[in-house]
């Protein structure tokens, strides 16, 4: 049974239909990549699934429960965490306090201790008292992922985790995300960078202009001219 099952997802903002009738399934512990050019509606899709957007129609089933229409603060408490494209950290909070803030979402469920998070991100442990605003781009991205992990999620939605990061850091990121997946957490990965997508995901869905245009394995996607054209047409 899928841990995440989305059907008929449509997101409209005023008159702009950002996402039209998107459907996808993610099995427990699996990593699915959501690909497509800029403006294709990838971010709108994951934010809609996570509960951050108001005008959403369609059905989202998570872990057997219908979470369509639930606000993000409730969705995250159900075990579906989002690492948003712009990170959305708290500029004045220290690394430690950011993680502590997120423990709020894990209440009632077994908690993930900060030590576990620091094992994934030793860089963050070194900087535990430093405030988020003074961290480097890569460290902020790690903190954002760590914040999602603290909520003890069964699944994480990752929106362009490699954006704006230097090549070396991207490799580290790929490693860490791979380890997170191996610990049993399913992942929906939004990426423009096909290299990251191929390293982490087995299957993918491609969006263009808000619509699904392709779905299949990532290997097949790399071979298809269609995908290239989707980005540049």
């Amino acid at each position: 049974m899928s841990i995440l099952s989305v059907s008929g997802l449509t997101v409209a903002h005023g008159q702009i239909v950002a996402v039209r009738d998107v459907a996808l399934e993610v099995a427990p512990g699996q990593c699915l990549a959501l690909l497509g050019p800029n403006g294709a509606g990838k971010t709108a899709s994951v934010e809609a699934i996570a509960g951050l957007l108001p005008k959403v129609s369609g059905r989202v089933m998570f872990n057997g429960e219908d979470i369509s229409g639930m606000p993000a603060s409730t969705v995250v408490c159900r075990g579906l965490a989002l690492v948003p494209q712009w990170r959305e950290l708290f500029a004045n909070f220290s690394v430690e306090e950011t993680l502590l803030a997120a423990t709020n979402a894990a209440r009632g469920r077994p908690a993930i201790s900060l030590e576990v998070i620091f094992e994934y991100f030793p860089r963050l442990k070194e900087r535990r008292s430093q405030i988020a605003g003074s961290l480097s781009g890569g460290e902020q991205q790690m903190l954002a992922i760590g914040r999602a992990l603290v909520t003890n999620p069964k699944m994480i939605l990752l929106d362009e985790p490699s954006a704006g990061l230097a090549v070396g850091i991207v490799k580290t990121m790929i490693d860490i995300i791979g380890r997170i997946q191996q610990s049993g957490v399913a992942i929906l990965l939004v990426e423009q960078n096909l290299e990251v997508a191929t390293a982490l995901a087995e299957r993918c869905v491609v969006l263009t202009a808000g619509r699904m245009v392709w779905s299949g394995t990532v290997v097949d996607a790399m071979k298809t001219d269609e995908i290239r054209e989707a980005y540049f047409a």
Partner: protein
Amino acid sequence: MSELLMVIIGGLASGAVYSLVAIGIVVIHKATKTVNFAHGGFVLLGAFAAYLVVVKLQWTYWAAYLIVPVLIGGLATGVELAILRPLRKADLFTVITATIFIGIGLSEIYRLSYNTEILAMPKPIAGAPFFFGDVILTRGQLWVAAGALTAGFVGLLVFSHATIGRSMRAMASNVRGATLCGYSVDRVYAIAWFVGGALAGLAGVFAGPSKGISPDLAVAMITAGFVAAVIGGFDSLRGALLGGLLLGLAETFAAAYVSSAMKSAISFLLLFVVLLWRPDGLFSEAKVRDV
């Protein structure tokens, strides 16, 4: 010298009340991005409630200090639920206008019940004033200064360290990020208004005996609270606390060494100068870029 000391203590006493009011305004603004022009009305009703508790019900002042903040906090949450929640998506203009008229409405409700007679309350602390040489310090002044300041500090500490404060600070910093930590906007806003209202109510209990209860109290408190908050930088609780004290001192100094007209004018002049010279406030914390 002794006169100077009395002026300072007097300034600290009224300044401490202003600090409480300003802290309440800033808590609400930080957490909900709303500037609560109705805050003065909350203070007035707090003073009025204290009057009812102490004079009508003949209970002790301690009862007032405990009950009134809860009452006014509840009232503030009610205002949030009934009026501001539906206006959540509206523009600033609408929200400011609404809170201005809610504030005046609250003081009108009071005026209709007690007209414009000034209600007097007994002193919170009985006993003779303290004499240090030429210096006369009334117990009331010392009580207000100490009590209101302590309450202010406690408020600051709760906000910066307690879990409940964390939810408000997270919401203040980044609403989306806060929801991703499981903090519900509705709940945090309600809490912030409750805390803000409670602080206003408490300020009212302190202000009632020292300033007298009349509809003018609402306008006086909102302006003083605002000026203090602006001096402090409008988003800094510590700034609000210090701003209130600074304002109180400025007023008593103006009254003692210039004229009573200057006392009324000084708060406005201070506001004006701060807005033009240091619009971010005198005590504001350094701004960190959004992440």
